[in-house]
C-alpha cells in the first residue's frame, strides 16, 4: 500500500542523524518550556524561529514540531505538580492531576500522563499518515455556523459537569465570555472595555489570565495553609502505574485519543476542546462520578491523551490544506515560508520528504518524550521538595518572565497580579476558575463565528437550525441542559457533588 512506502520514505528522512538530533533537541526544549510555568510554545517558537534559518526546512520543522508537542507534555507536568496550566489544553489536567499529587500519587499521575500521551501520539501519527487527506474534507464541512454550535455545545457541557453549583459554573463561564470581549472589535475597530489603556487594545492575553487565576492565586492559597503542602512533599509515589491503574486508564486513554484526534482536525483551534470533551465523557460514563475532581486517574488519562492526539492532528489542516488551525501552526507556516516552502495543498506531492519526514518524526518524537520524561519525572517531582520560601518566589518570577516575554508589555505583568488577587477571591468564594478560563478561550472564537455566520446569513438566526450539522450540535446542547435541569437529575447531581 502507498501509505507504507510513504511512511518508509518518511522514516528514512526522520532517522538521519541530523534530524534525530533536531527532534531530540526540540522535544527536550519543548518539555522544559512546558514545565516552566508561563513560557509557552508560542513564545519559544517565535524566539527560536531565526535560529532555524541555517537548517534545511525539514530539519527546522521537525525541531519546531518537537517543541510544540514536547510543550504539551511538559505542560501537564506543571499542571499536576503546581496546579498551573501552562497551555489552554492543560486546564483540565489540573482538576484531577493535582488532586492525585496531593494524595501522594504525583508519580502515577505523571506516569499516566506520559504513557497516555505516547499511546495517543502513536495513534495520531497513524491517523495523519492514513487519513490526512480525506479527513481534511471533513474539516471543510465546518463553516462559521457549525463552529459556533460546536462551541455552544462545549459550553453547555462545561456548565453541567462543573464541580459545585450549576449557577456558579454558569456565572464563571459568562464572566469568561465577558473577559474575552475586551479589546478591539474585529468588525468595526471599535475599542471595547479597554478604558483607554493601549495594552488592552488587543484584548487580555490567555497567559496573563491563566497565570493570574491559576498560578498567582494558587501561590496565595498555599501561603495560607503551608502545612497542607507538606503532605504532597512527603509522598511522591511510584512512577509507573500499577495494574489496577492501567486497567482503569486504558479505555479513557483510547476514548480520549479518538475525541482529541477528531477535534484537533477542526480549524480554529479545535484542539482546545479535546481534553475538555474527554473529561466530560469520562465523568459521564464513570460508575462513580463523585471521584472526579478528587484525583480520579481517568480524569488524567483521558484528557492527556486527547490533548496530545489533538496537538498532532492539528497538523493535518496545515500539511494538507496549508491553513493553520491555531497560533502555533501559524508560526509553522512562517517557518515553512522562510525556507521557501509555501504551505498549501501541494506540499504533500511536491515536498514528500518534508511531509512524510515530519510525520515519521512525530512518532519518533513521542517515543523520545516517553524516554526523556519517565526518568525526568523524578527530577520534576524533586521540584516539589524545594522549600516554599524558594519555590514560590521562583514560580512567580518564572510567571512574570513568561508573561513579559509574550508581548514585551510591563502592564501585562501587573494585570496578572490583579487576576491573581481575583483568582484568590474566587477560590475563597467557592467558584471554580476552570470554567472561566474555558469561557475565555472559546469566547473570542465564538463571537467571531457567531458574527461571521450572521453576516453571511444576512442576520438570520435560522442559519444555525437550517444547516444540519449545526442543528445537530445545538440539539445535543439542549438535550444536555434539559437532562441536567430535570428535577430528578438535578437532585442526583447535587448528591454527587455535595459529598
Amino acid at each position, binding site marked *: 500500500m502507498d501509505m507504507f512506502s510513504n511512511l518508509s520514505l518518511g522514516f528514512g528522512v526522520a532517522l538521519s542523524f541530523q534530524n534525530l538530533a533536531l527532534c531530540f533537541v526540540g522535544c527536550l526544549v519543548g518539555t522544559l518550556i512546558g514545565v516552566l510555568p508561563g513560557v509557552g510554545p508560542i513564545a519559544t517558537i517565535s524566539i527560536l524561529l531565526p535560529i532555524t534559518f541555517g537548517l534545511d526546512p525539514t530539519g527546522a520543522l521537525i525541531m519546531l514540531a518537537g517543541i510544540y508537542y514536547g510543550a504539551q507534555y511538559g505542560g501537564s507536568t506543571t499542571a499536576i505538580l503546581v496546579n498551573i496550566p501552562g497551555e489552554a489544553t492543560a486546564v483540565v489536567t489540573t482538576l484531577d492531576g493535582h488532586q492525585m499529587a496531593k494524595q501522594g500519587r504525583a508519580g502515577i499521575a505523571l506516569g499516566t500522563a506520559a504513557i497516555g500521551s505516547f499511546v495517543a501520539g502513536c495513534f495520531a501519527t497513524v491517523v495523519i499518515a492514513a487519513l490526512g487527506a480525506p479527513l481534511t474534507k471533513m474539516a*471543510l464541512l465546518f463553516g462559521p455556523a457549525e463552529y459556533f454550535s460546536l462551541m455552544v455545545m462545549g459550553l453547555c457541557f462545561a456548565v453541567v459537569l462543573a464541580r459545585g453549583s450549576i449557577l456558579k459554573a454558569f456565572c464563571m463561564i459568562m464572566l469568561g465570555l465577558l473577559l474575552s470581549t475586551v479589546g478591539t472589535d474585529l468588525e468595526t475597530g471599535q475599542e471595547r472595555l479597554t478604558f483607554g489603556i493601549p495594552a488592552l487594545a488587543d484584548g487580555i492575553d490567555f497567559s496573563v489570565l491563566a497565570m493570574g487565576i491559576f498560578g498567582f492565586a494558587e501561590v496565595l492559597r498555599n501561603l495560607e495553609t503551608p502545612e497542607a503542602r507538606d503532605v504532597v512533599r512527603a509522598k511522591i509515589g511510584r512512577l509507573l502505574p500499577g495494574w489496577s491503574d492501567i486497567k482503569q486508564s486504558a479505555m479513557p486513554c483510547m476514548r480520549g485519543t479518538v475525541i482529541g484526534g477528531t477535534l484537533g482536525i477542526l480549524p480554529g483551534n479545535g484542539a482546545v476542546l479535546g481534553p475538555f470533551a474527554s473529561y466530560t465523557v469520562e465523568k459521564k460514563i464513570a460508575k462513580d462520578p463523585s471521584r472526579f475532581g478528587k484525583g480520579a486517574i481517568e480524569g488524567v488519562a483521558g484528557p492527556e491523551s486527547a490533548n496530545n492526539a489533538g496537538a498532532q492532528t492539528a497538523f493535518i489542516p496545515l500539511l494538507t490544506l496549508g491553513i493553520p488551525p491555531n497560533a502555533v501552526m501559524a508560526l509553522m507556516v512562517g517557518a515553512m515560508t522562510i525556507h521557501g516552502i509555501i504551505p498549501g495543498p501541494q506540499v504533500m506531492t511536491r515536498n514528500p520528504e518534508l511531509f512524510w519526514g515530519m510525520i515519521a518524526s512525530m512518532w519518533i518524537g513521542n517515543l523520545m518524550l516517553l524516554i526523556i520524561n519517565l526518568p525526568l519525572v523524578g527530577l520534576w517531582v524533586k521540584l516539589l521538595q524545594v522549600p516554599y520560601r524558594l519555590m514560590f518566589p521562583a514560580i512567580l518570577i518564572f510567571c512574570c518572565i513568561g508573561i513579559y516575554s509574550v*508581548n514585551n508589555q510591563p502592564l501585562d505583568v501587573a494585570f496578572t497580579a490583579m487576576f491573581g488577587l481575583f483568582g484568590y477571591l474566587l477560590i475563597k468564594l467557592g467558584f471554580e476558575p476552570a470554567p472561566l478560563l474555558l469561557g475565555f478561550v472559546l469566547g473570542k472564537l465564538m463571537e467571531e463565528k457567531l458574527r461571521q455566520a450572521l453576516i*453571511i446569513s444576512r442576520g438570520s438566526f435560522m442559519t444555525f437550525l437550517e444547516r444540519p450539522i449545526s442543528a445537530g450540535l445545538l440539539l445535543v446542547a439542549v438535550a444536555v441542559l434539559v437532562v441536567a435541569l430535570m428535577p430528578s437529575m438535578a437532585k442526583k447531581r447535587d448528591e454527587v457533588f455535595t459529598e
Partner: protein
Amino acid sequence: MKKTVIGLAAAMTLALAGGAHAQGYPTKPVTMIVPFAAGGPTDIIARIVGDHMSKTLGQQIVIENVAGAGGTTGITRAMTAAPDGYTIAMGHLGTFSAAPATYPGLKYDPINGIQPIGLAGGTPILIVARKNLEANDLKSFVAAVKANPDKFNEAHAGLGSVSWTTCTLLKGQLGVPKLNAVAYRGTGPALNDLVSGQIDFMCDQIVSVSEQVKAGTIKAFAVASAQRSPALPDVPTTTEAGLPEYQIEAWNGLAAPKGTPKEAVDKLVDALNKALNDENTKKRLLDLGAVIPTATDRTPEGFGALIKRDAAKLDPALKSAPR
C-alpha cells in the same frame, strides 16, 4: 504610567548611546521593529532583508516583534523612539499609507512625521473567489457584483489588514462600499472558509493564496499590478482584465523616527540597497512571490512619495467604508 515607561526607556536608550552622534554609526546592534507576529509576511521580509543588512552595517540587526492594532502599536513605538538610527521599523502599506484614514487617533504621521528609508519589497494583490462561483473572469465578476451587491460576501483578515484595505479600495472603486464584509482573525481562517465555499471572494497577497490557486481549490480573477506575476503567469493583470484603475500592491518598507542623523539614514539606505542587489537575498524574496523594488523606490524620497501616493489613493475608499 505608560508615558513614564516610554520616557524612561527613551532616556535609557539615549544614555546607552552615550550621547555619541552617528559618527562611526553603527557602534551597537540596530533594533528593527516588526509590528506583526513572527512568521507573518512582513516578518519574513524583515528577516530576509535584515539578515543581509547586518553584514553591510557590521552590526547585528535585531528583529523585535511588537504586534497589535493592525501594526500601529509597533510603528508607534518605533517612531517615538530616540532618533539615533538604532531603532528602525519595517512597516507596510497598512501602517504607513492606510493607517491615518483607518485609525483616527493615530500617534504618528506617516506623511510628514517619519524618516523613510526605502522600499524593501512589494507583494502583488490577487482577487480570488471560491471555485464554484458562476463568474469565470474579472469582467463577469464585476458585472455580477455591481448588479447584485447584496448577493456577495467578501472575507478579510480584520480591520486595518492588507486584505481589508485592498478589498475596501476595490469595493469603493466598484461603487459597492456596503457589500457584505466578513471579518476573520488573520488570512488563514478566511482562506479556509473561501476554500470550503462559505464566502465568495477576497483580496489578498499572492504569497498567501498562490498555492491554493495552483491546486484549483480557489480561482483567481486578476492580479492588481502592472505586470503579471511569475508565480502565477496565467492570471491576467487588472488592466488586461478590464479594471485598470484597480492598481495596488502590498509593499513593505523601512522607516526611522524623524530626526535620525543623515549619516545613519545614508548607511541604512546603502545597506538596504546592497541587500536587494544580493543574488541570494533577491532569490529568497522572489521565491515568496515578492517584487524587487525599483532603484527610485529604494531611496527615502522615492519611498516617501509612494507612501503619499497610496495614502491619497486609499483615503476616499477607507473614509467612506462602513464601520
